């Protein structure tokens, strides 16, 4: 039992160390010329642009359901006017960044791990090394930079469509007074709430891309290994995002 615990802890520390080294190397290669802008833009398109549909759908329905739920609660003491502020605060501070990053983890994080994993087991990563080209610079750095930049942008989109969804449900369907809905929202939501969410999403962007790249980069054992790496990438990034969400929120509260 104790032996098992020691082995697990040892493995965890080792993996964490390798992850940290990979992050350090990706920053090092990111600031060294030549900058691989083409690779970064390609990843920005894949991680950001191609995720817009899923982020819009998730954000809109989250805002809509938030309006429904909070209306149910607030109606009990006649404070329906606060629905707008509640939806906007929940979206900008919490659900916008977290749900966006979880959706992107499922969509792009899994794809990153699978792609890098396949490149590893088919020796494409070795081929880069043999060509005297650093695989971290070509494969990992562009993905981390792209996620760091695109996740906050996707979060802004999610915040916007979430509030819009809340507005449609609250004002148009449930008949909340439009003036009260917007007035309370403007009164209670501060710019800091939005920044707070954006900082979180940038950090989550680094976490999801780093974990996905790490799992894929060190995949081994053929197709099975790639499958395992992909699953682990999604699970580990999602859990890490949720844990770091609490830590970041408590720090910035």
């Amino acid at each position, binding site marked *: 039992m104790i032996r098992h615990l020691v082995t697990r802890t040892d493995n965890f520390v080792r993996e964490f160390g390798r992850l940290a080294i990979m992050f350090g190397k990706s920053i090092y290669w990111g600031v060294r010329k030549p900058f691989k802008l083409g690779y970064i833009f390609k990843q920005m398109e894949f991680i950001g642009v191609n995720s817009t549909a899923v982020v819009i759908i998730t954000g809109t329905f989250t805002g809509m359901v938030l309006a429904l739920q909070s209306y149910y609660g607030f109606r009990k003491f006649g404070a329906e006017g606060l629905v707008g502020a509640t939806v906007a605060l929940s979206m900008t501070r919490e659900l916008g960044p977290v749900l966006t990053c979880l959706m992107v983890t499922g969509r792009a994080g899994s794809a990153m791990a699978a792609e890098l994993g*396949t*490149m590893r087991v*088919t*020796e*494409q990563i*070795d*081929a880069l*090394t*043999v*060509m*005297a*080209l*650093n695989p971290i610079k070509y494969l990992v750095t562009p993905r981390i930079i792209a996620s760091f930049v695109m996740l906050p942008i996707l979060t802004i989109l999610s915040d916007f469509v979430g509030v819009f969804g809340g507005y449609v449900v609250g004002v148009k369907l449930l008949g909340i007074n439009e003036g009260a809905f917007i007035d309370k929202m403007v009164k209670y939501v501060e710019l800091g709430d939005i920044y707070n969410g954006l900082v979180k999403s940038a950090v989550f962007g680094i976490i999801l891309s780093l974990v996905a790249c790490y799992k894929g980069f060190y995949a081994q054992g053929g197709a099975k290994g790639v499958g395992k790496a992909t699953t682990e990438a999604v699970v580990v990034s999602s859990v890490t995002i949720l844990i770091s969400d609490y830590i970041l929120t408590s720090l910035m509260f």
Partner: protein
Amino acid sequence: MESKAIRIKDLHKSFGNQKVLDGINLDIENGKITVIIGKSGGGKTVLLKHLIGLIKPDSGEIWVEGRDITKLRERELNEIRRKYGMLFQEAALFDSMNVYDNVAFPIREHTKTPEKEIELIVEAKLERVGLAGFGGKMPSELSGGMRKRVGLARAMVLDPEVILFDEPTSALDPIISLTILDLIKETQTYLKKTYVVISHDILGMFRIADTVALLADGKIVETGTPDEVRRSGNDVTMEFLNATKIPGFSLGGKS
């Protein structure tokens, strides 16, 4: 020019408890085809990957151009790697790029050659491997043999001094194997570069080799020209050659 392109001295490598390389000593001749044969899973690929710094040994030395590459830092190692090309077992083409971009990739990344010139070089290399006009195809649209030929074109594109081949004929039918072997021999005769080939395909390798080295139990047990190796009286060598089931292939000590 030094006659030895690569000198391997007492190379050891273990993975866990498993000893894979147990004191390899081998000189690779400049401008010749050296073939390292041995059983599958006998450490041939591990040895080949040591030659280009993809794996670090537990102990031992590998001398290239007067430098022990096992002691080099990544940046210095990359200077050596730029003079190498490698054909991987499954060709390792980048599947996100078409054939043309795959072959052009090393030139674009390492030189400032104008695109017009790159086009000429790539076309010439593809023609040399018999794939002129295939530039627009994606690797997934090619057969195994064609992928290896593209891999060879990519390995040759920067005119490296040394080209390493990891099982160039594995998983190919006998006719395609023959085409690949002829291509290896033909390009080497034309380019006069150093080729190191690892394989378990004894017959195929004896067709192209200038020097044959037999790897068994983590050691090089035999080296020589194909004829010398066939005449060897060494038990391990004879056993390996007899596995071809061709009567008289192993001359077993007879001259």
